[in-house]
């Protein structure tokens, strides 16, 4: 019978994905890009929608929430997983509302007026069964997947609006989005080839900046690699700072690779614009207040190797992976839907996620 087989297959896939997430986050394996993670999550959610047994939208949302909690628990720092789950939940809500015939606007936000007039939260059960719901949801998820596939290109297309010739651009670590962004600007268009110079801070201890520099220089861009300690020293000659990030937080701040806060402060001191290239799937409804969940640490061996000997037992060594960058230091966000100021991020978030889904 196809049912149980499909179910076991589904659970197998989910387990495989979970263990992948757990392993991928230690920093030692090949670091998978967040775009890949987002795609895989969405594909997995589509599979769950297609293969799991559910009769109403509420059931489906419950299933997805359950799986989602397990996935985020496997790798809390990988926020794209949670983001995609929330996107899909929102899709389900929308499709349900559309099937029921009511307009989307009414169910959107809890407005103060609604609270006063209706006298309490409207309980939306999602219990009604609609035959076409499954197909609609799967179609919507497919659209989401297409959007995900085009994000890097969409961002890269905006490159020429922001980079003029003979500029000196600084970046830190390795971001595939920024790489595509800069390579697009440098590519020859007709007769014109925009020449600019890129300075890459290597971002110890993982030194991902080295990889970024080699790929940029292969694309013909003048690249210089500097040590992290020299960021402030060379900042006076830099025209723009363009960085990628791991997550965009709900207040417009960033959770980026460590060293980014120093870079942002140096840019602010020299009044250099700081541009963040972040696709929409990185936007997360988290706030930076949760001290214990914000930071992630990896093995201190990266910082002080075991070969150092006796002193290891007598010192504390920290190796944080992420940095918090407050929104005041950021000038512009470039995403696949255009450019925004950091103060606009909360609005985008309300379009992407439903407030009830912020807590999975």
């Amino acid at each position: 019978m196809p049912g149980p087989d499909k179910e076991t297959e589904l659970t197998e896939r989910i387990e495989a994905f979970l263990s992948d997430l757990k392993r991928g986050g230690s920093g030692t394996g090949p670091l998978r890009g967040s775009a890949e993670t987002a795609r895989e999550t969405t594909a997995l959610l589509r599979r769950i929608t297609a293969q799991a047994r559910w009769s109403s939208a509420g059931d489906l949302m419950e299933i997805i929430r359950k799986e989602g909690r397990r996935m985020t628990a496997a790798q809390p720092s990988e926020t794209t997983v949670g983001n995609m789950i929330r996107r899909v939940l929102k899709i389900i809500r929308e499709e349900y509302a559309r099937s029921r015939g009511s307009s989307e606007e009414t169910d959107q936000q809890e407005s103060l007026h609604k609270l006063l007039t209706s006298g309490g939260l409207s309980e939306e059960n999602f219990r009604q069964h609609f035959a076409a719901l499954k197909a609609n949801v799967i179609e919507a998820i497919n659209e989401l997947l297409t959007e995900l596939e085009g994000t890097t290109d969409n961002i890269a297309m905006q490159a020429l609006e922001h980079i003029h010739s003979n500029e000196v651009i600084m970046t830190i670590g390795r971001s595939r989005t920024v790489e595509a962004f800069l390579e697009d600007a440098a590519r020859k268009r007709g007769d014109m080839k925009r020449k600019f110079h890129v300075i890459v801070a290597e971002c110890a201890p993982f030194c991902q900046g080295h990889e970024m520099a080699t790929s940029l220089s292969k694309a013909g861009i003048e690249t210089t690699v500097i040590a992290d300690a020299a960021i402030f020293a060379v900042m006076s000659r830099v025209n723009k700072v363009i960085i990628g990030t791991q997550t965009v937080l709900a207040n417009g701040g960033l959770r980026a690779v460590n060293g980014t806060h120093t870079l942002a402060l140096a840019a602010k001191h020299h009044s250099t614009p700081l541009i963040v290239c972040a696709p929409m799937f990185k936007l997360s409804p988290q706030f930076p207040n949760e001290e214990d969940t914000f930071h992630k640490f990896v093995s201190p061996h990266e910082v002080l190797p075991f070969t150092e000997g006796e002193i290891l037992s007598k010192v504390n060594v920290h190796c944080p992976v992420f940095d918090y960058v407050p929104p005041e230091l950021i000038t512009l966000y470039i995403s696949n839907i255009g450019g925004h100021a950091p103060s606009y991020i909360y609005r985008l978030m309300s379009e992407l996620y439903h407030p009830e889904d912020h807590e999975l």
Partner: protein
Amino acid sequence: MADSGDTEGAGKNDEIERAKTEGKELTKEEKQRLRKEKKQQKKNKEKKEEKASQEGGKEKKHVSSESPASQPTTQTQTQKAPSAVPAQVPVPASETPAPAEKPAKSKAELKAERRARQEAERSSKQGKKGEASQQAATGKPKAPPSELQPVVKRLPEHVQADNPEVLKKLAKKLERQQIPLRSDYGYKVSLFSHLHQYSRKAPLTQQLGIPSTVIHPAIVRLGLQYSQGIVAGSNARSVALLHAFKQVIRDYSTPPNEELSRDLVNKLKPYISFLNQCRPLSASMGNAIKYIKKEISNISSQCKEEDAKSKLLNCIDCYINEKITLAAKAIAKYSIEKISDGDVILVYGCSSLVNHILYEAFEKDRKFRVIVVDSRPRLEGREALRRLVQRGISCTYVLISAVSYILPEVSKVFLGAHALLANGYVMSRVGTSQIALVAKAFNVPVLVCCETYKFCDRVQTDSFVSNELDDPDDLIVTRNGKTQLEHWQQVPSLGLLNLVYDVTPPDFVDLVITDLGMIPCTSVPVVLRVKNVDQ
């Protein structure tokens, strides 16, 4: 004019120009240069006037007074075209600082001679004082109120690596001194093409042939230690330099018909050029060399050789004791007042002075813990970590990219300095300015500890114009078996930059602790002035 009895080279016309070498034969090149200079000088009216006045009395000039950034070697060749006037640091009050004409070449040699003549002619000089100080300097303009010095400094050679003329002159000078020239290595980032960049892969003796007759073996050893980074840190380098010079003085014997005061200074010149080739001299080393040269030239000609030598050795010991050892004690005493129980102190890299302060505070039973911040590629913080842990101080260790994570825990930041510039900027290991910046953003006080002998007359506003480029291959790292940048030389558009120093603006620094007390960053020129008056 008193002739000191040594062979004066070409003769009368040389005397008029004051451009000659002492006791050496003029090579063809030098004669040509002489002729060129003569023409240049004749074009300038004021120079003629000055010549006339100066024929009668030569002023005393200070050794390497124009570039306190310790480039005595650079005096010679670099200033041909703009005939700038060297900065005059005020000398003991009896002598008049006065603008003097810039000799076109071999400035240090000329100085030595002039000094000898001045000793004999001090009285006539006093008479001419009024005249001379009225002469405006030729070439670059300067502010000439009677007490302030005309401060036009010659540009040191080590920041003109992109000027082929300067490089040629340097090559000629080194050839004359029989010191091999070290060649640059690798692709230089365009912003820094005016600086030298050397490789550390092969030890210096393999790259250059060093003639043992010209350079004392102690100096060769010192040069090797510098170039390989075995002796690093400004205090360590200065002390090593002074010890090497002591050895040189001990082994020195005055050749016949020579005066110790002049000949020894001349002997030191090729050594300094050589050391400069191994690694550009630091500000502290420059001040030490200035001091030694002054002491040597102050030796009167009546002094017997043995007495002179022991006097010099004594002077050097005194200098080390006063300026370095006792200064460290004084600074520690002041700093301990600033360390309270329960403090969390952040230090960067390995500064001998800051480490000393922490040891002393720990001896005095202050309860504090230390966070050591380190950076690639030098990773000097590990050395500091070892030393502190050995003493029993509880430490934490992070890399500089994690400094904004760790800073909320920190109560004070102690930084060491390589030099303090006259406009209040702190020149220190690269990364210091970054730490000061982030500390300022978190409102943590930043204290810089620096001995007064590291104060220098230079001014600088960014880390580009005068810096040191280290071996770019140091940035290469192998992780997980892969070395990304291994073949960076073959990729044409890829460059590696390994800076050694950077400058911290004074608004990031809250306090500077020196052996003279605790001063704000902006008081550095005051200290310099006071110091010079004392001397």
